[in-house]
């Protein structure tokens, strides 16, 4: 019997290539005759384009071509709307998608104006200096509130305002609930989220083979199938003549999926024009403008409470910075709107958001994807309520948790996947208790007292969250036993480090009784598999994982059937293990899976009608709606009250993401999420001036957490399987990052006793300098 690997901390299949420098990333693609691309990008945020002169650039030795928007002819068009707005009555949505090269107007710093192609990247960049651009600069729209005032400059003149979208969702009757409330607490919250900043930037290589009429594109995308289909249509090619490969991708976290980045659209076209392969690799400066961000929201929120701390209702009106174009629809603010409700019973809810056009780079989901913003508002409201009603902060959370017998729990509003926001399963209170235990909540006041006596300022934070994961529409997978006995799996999603090469192998191994290392997984190559939506919303393991499971089950059935025919026995007498099918209790009577695969593809003779060749199956899985994971983070910090230097003394995560396929990989996902959450909560902020210039566009100025900033984390989990998929799994990719902001605010307030000093921390990030400002203001 082979050892069971499902649910075990199996080491990763993909590691060897990565550890030895043999993994292929996009910038590693080298092709004969390859040319190199650089983009001239706008240095101002908002301007009319008067003229662009590329003639001098074209004369530079080594420059092959350069194109402006006008040179693209019919190929120039607006990008698609990647995610249409969900069907929420009354929704206003002004669709203004981005363009490959700016024409007429530039709308954010970094928007591309000219593409230059040269023999080397060095020459292409030299040639950018040869281009003359004449612009008429306009006022930049940066501040969200000013953007909506009469007389503001307009990002899109034809819209008539800077409203990209407005959506109201309600549940129950907030006004009636508020009228009966014992206490109403209202505040304004600011939440900034930053740039995902994977260590590998984006890149595209395109190779047009005229003889074969074949376009091959290597792309750092999270969604290769959609890139292929979209580009085939734009280029006038059959889908099967376009192959998109997302090879090893060095981190994504959301922004590596956007349909389409200008570079994705332009490189293949240029390759066809010049009949040469072309490469563009984003540099880090470009990444700060040319790759999408997440950014800020301003919430005016109020909570209505009963005297015992029960939530009667919440009202929230917020502004969301959407950037210069809105190709990703409403995904981010809808996530904020929905996730705000968290694990709590909120009988009445009234939430309205306005997505605002600004002259800043486009906003699309980045790990957490707006969920952070909502969770911050809810958790801070509960902290304020606990303080005002003099209830313990863990207790106020506990009494409001959705009880275990209330699932599935329908929140009566619409989620980003167009389905009602309904939580599939959960058991929240034990998670809270485990976290309180692990952080030592009961003894903490005592510990804090003792520390204070020694002049040390320590504080504790605790916050709860849910995460909608694993949304549809669907993914597919092909599982095939080869005649050498090894198994190959192909799926359409891209992978950026999540361990798919291993977890999908574990799933198939469970069905086929074969070693994980004998299973080869291909992701992100449209010649291998060309159905599916991509890697986002913590859905890879859930949706593609279940498709792998379904396909492997069919292959297992086929193997049993073939073996029962061969041995003329009942399938019930057969077992699959160690790469073979054996007859129970008859030692030596077996056939290997490889032999069965060979038999399933006979060279001569006849087969029965309806026989499918091979030990192979392709299956699809689409969940009816998303699966909701949940968790609690708790942390103890020590603050220096003069420098506001912060040290995390203890960090605890307890979470529930249903059935666990590989606890080692899951732990890694949580670690990485928390690290990004810490950067977000503590210091990551895209600092724009009022003209839309980014003031910290380098990794020396926009700081990412280092090994000195991220503490050791203690993890634990409970398992409440999802009823929405046969394996019972829920996604986990974003959980680590979501609740860190309110945790910081609460722990810092606690450490510095800010509540009693009249200081409330209602914003993120809370860098030492910002804390200094906030506390000094309070002192007057």
């Amino acid at each position, binding site marked *: 019997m082979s050892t069971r690997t499902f649910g075990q901390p199996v080491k990763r299949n993909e*590691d060897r290539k990565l550890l030895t420098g043999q993994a292929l990333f996009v910038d590693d693609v080298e092709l004969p005759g390859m040319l190199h691309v650089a983009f001239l990008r706008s240095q101002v945020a908002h301007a009319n384009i008067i003229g662009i002169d590329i003639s001098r650039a074209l004369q530079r030795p080594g420059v092959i071509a350069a194109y402006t928007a006008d040179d693209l002819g019919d190929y120039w068009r607006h990008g698609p709307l990647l995610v249409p707005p969900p069907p929420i009555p009354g929704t206003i949505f002004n669709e203004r998608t981005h363009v490959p090269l700016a024409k007429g107007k530039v709308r954010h710093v970094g928007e591309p104006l000219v593409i230059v192609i040269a023999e080397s990247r*060095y020459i292409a960049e030299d040639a950018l200096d040869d281009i003359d651009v004449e612009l008429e600069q306009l006022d930049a729209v940066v501040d969200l509130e000013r953007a909506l005032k009469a007389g503001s400059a307009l990002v899109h003149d034809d819209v008539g305002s800077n409203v990209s979208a407005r959506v109201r969702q309600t549940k129950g009757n907030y006004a009636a609930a508020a009228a009966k409330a014992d206490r109403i607490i209202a505040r304004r919250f600011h939440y900034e989220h930053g740039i995902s900043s*994977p*260590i590998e930037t984006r890149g595209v290589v395109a190779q047009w083979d005229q003889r074969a009429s074949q376009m091959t594109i290597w792309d750092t995308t999270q969604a290769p199938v959609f890139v292929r289909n979209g580009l085939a249509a734009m280029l006038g090619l059959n889908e099967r003549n376009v192959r998109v490969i997302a090879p*090893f991708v060095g981190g994504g976290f959301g922004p590596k999926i956007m349909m389409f980045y200008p570079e994705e659209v332009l490189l293949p076209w240029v390759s066809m024009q010049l009949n040469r392969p072309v490469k563009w690799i984003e540099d*880090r400066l470009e990444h700060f403008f040319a790759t999408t961000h997440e950014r800020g929201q301003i919430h005016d929120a109020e909570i209505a409470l009963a005297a015992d701390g029960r939530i009667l209702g919440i009202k929230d009106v917020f502004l969301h910075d959407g950037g210069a174009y809105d190709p990703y629809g409403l995904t981010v603010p809808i996530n904020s709107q929905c996730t705000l409700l968290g694990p709590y019973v909120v009988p009445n809810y009234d939430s309205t958001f306005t997505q605002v056009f600004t002259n800043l780079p486009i906003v699309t989901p980045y790990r957490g994807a707006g969920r952070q913003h909502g969770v911050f508002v809810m958790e801070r409201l509960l902290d304020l309520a606990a303080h005002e009603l003099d209830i313990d902060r863990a207790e106020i959370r506990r009494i409001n948790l959705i009880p275990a017998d209330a699932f599935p729990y329908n929140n009566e509003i619409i989620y980003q996947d167009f389905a009602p926001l309904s939580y599939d399963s959960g058991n929240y209170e034990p998670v809270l208790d485990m976290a309180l235990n692990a952080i030592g909540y009961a003894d903490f006041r005592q510990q804090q007292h003792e520390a204070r006596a020694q002049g040390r300022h320590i504080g504790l934070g605790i916050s709860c969250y849910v995460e909608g994961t694993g949304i549809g529409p669907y993914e597919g997978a092909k599982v095939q036993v080869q005649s050498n006995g090894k198994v190959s799996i192909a799926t359409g999603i891209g992978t950026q480090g999540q361990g798919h090469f291993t977890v999908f192998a574990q799933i198939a191994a469970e069905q086929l009784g074969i070693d994980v290392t004998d299973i080869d997984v291909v992701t992100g190559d449209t010649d291998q598999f060309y159905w599916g939506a991509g890697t986002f919303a913590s859905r890879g393991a859930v949706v593609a994982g279940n498709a792998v499971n379904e396909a492997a089950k069919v292959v297992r059935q086929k193997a049993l059937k073939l073996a029962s025919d061969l041995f003329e026995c009942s399938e019930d007498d057969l077992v699959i293990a160690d790469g073979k099918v054996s007859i129970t209790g008859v030692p030596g009577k077996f056939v290997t899976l490889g032999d069965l695969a060979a038999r399933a593809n006979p060279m001569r003779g006849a087969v029965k009608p309806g026989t499918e060749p091979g030990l192979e199956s392709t299956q699809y899985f689409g969940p009816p709606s998303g699966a909701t994971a949940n968790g609690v983070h708790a942390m103890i910090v020590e603050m220096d009250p003069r420098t506001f230097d912060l040290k995390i003394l203890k960090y605890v995560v307890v979470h529930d993401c249903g059935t666990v396929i590989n606890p080692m990989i899951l732990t890694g996902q949580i670690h*990485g999420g928390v*690290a990004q959450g810490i950067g977000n909560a503590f210091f990551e902020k895209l600092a724009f001036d009022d003209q839309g210039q980014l003031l910290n566009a380098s990794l020396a100025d926009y700081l990412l957490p280092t*090994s000195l900033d991220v503490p050791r984390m203690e993890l634990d989990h409970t398992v409440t399987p999802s009823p929405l998929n046969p394996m019972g799994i829920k996604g986990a990719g974003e959980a680590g990052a979501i609740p860190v902001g309110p945790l910081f605010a609460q722990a810092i307030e606690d450490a510095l006793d800010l509540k009693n000093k009249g200081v409330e921390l209602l914003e993120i990030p809370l860098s030492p300098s910002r804390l200094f400002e906030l506390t000094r203001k309070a002192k007057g």
Partner: protein
Amino acid sequence: MDSDIHDITLTVNGTTYNGRVESRLLLSDFLRHDLKLAGTHVGCEHGVCGACTVLLDGEPVRSCLMLAVQANTHAISTIEGLTSPGGDYHPLQQAMHDHHGLQCGYCTPGILMTMTAFLDENASPSEEEVREALSGNLCRCTGYQNIVDAVMTAAARMRS
């Protein structure tokens, strides 16, 4: 065109290479694109992320902050030379695999070069020292904990 071209000779992982380079060519580009040793990665090209770290005569340097011409006559070590000639992992590679010290793996070559050099200098580091030594290498995926554990494990295994 400037006649700003230099002939250089250097060794990489013990093999001698001759190159003809413009003076402005970065060492990282020379290794990756001229010598096709693409295991050395580039994350920022301004000296912060550490992904491009290689060893120059045994010392970690950022190959994005050096010109190829400056490496003339020197000995470079890169990720491609870290396994034994038979393909066995260096103890730190093994420990990174065992502890799940990599996710996307893009930062990994730089981390391996930095930390193997560190372990050569300090055979029994404390966790504090490991975190300090690692702090010049950015990893956006792992949260560092598993990398720290891998370095500690590798140190212990190398001592015994």
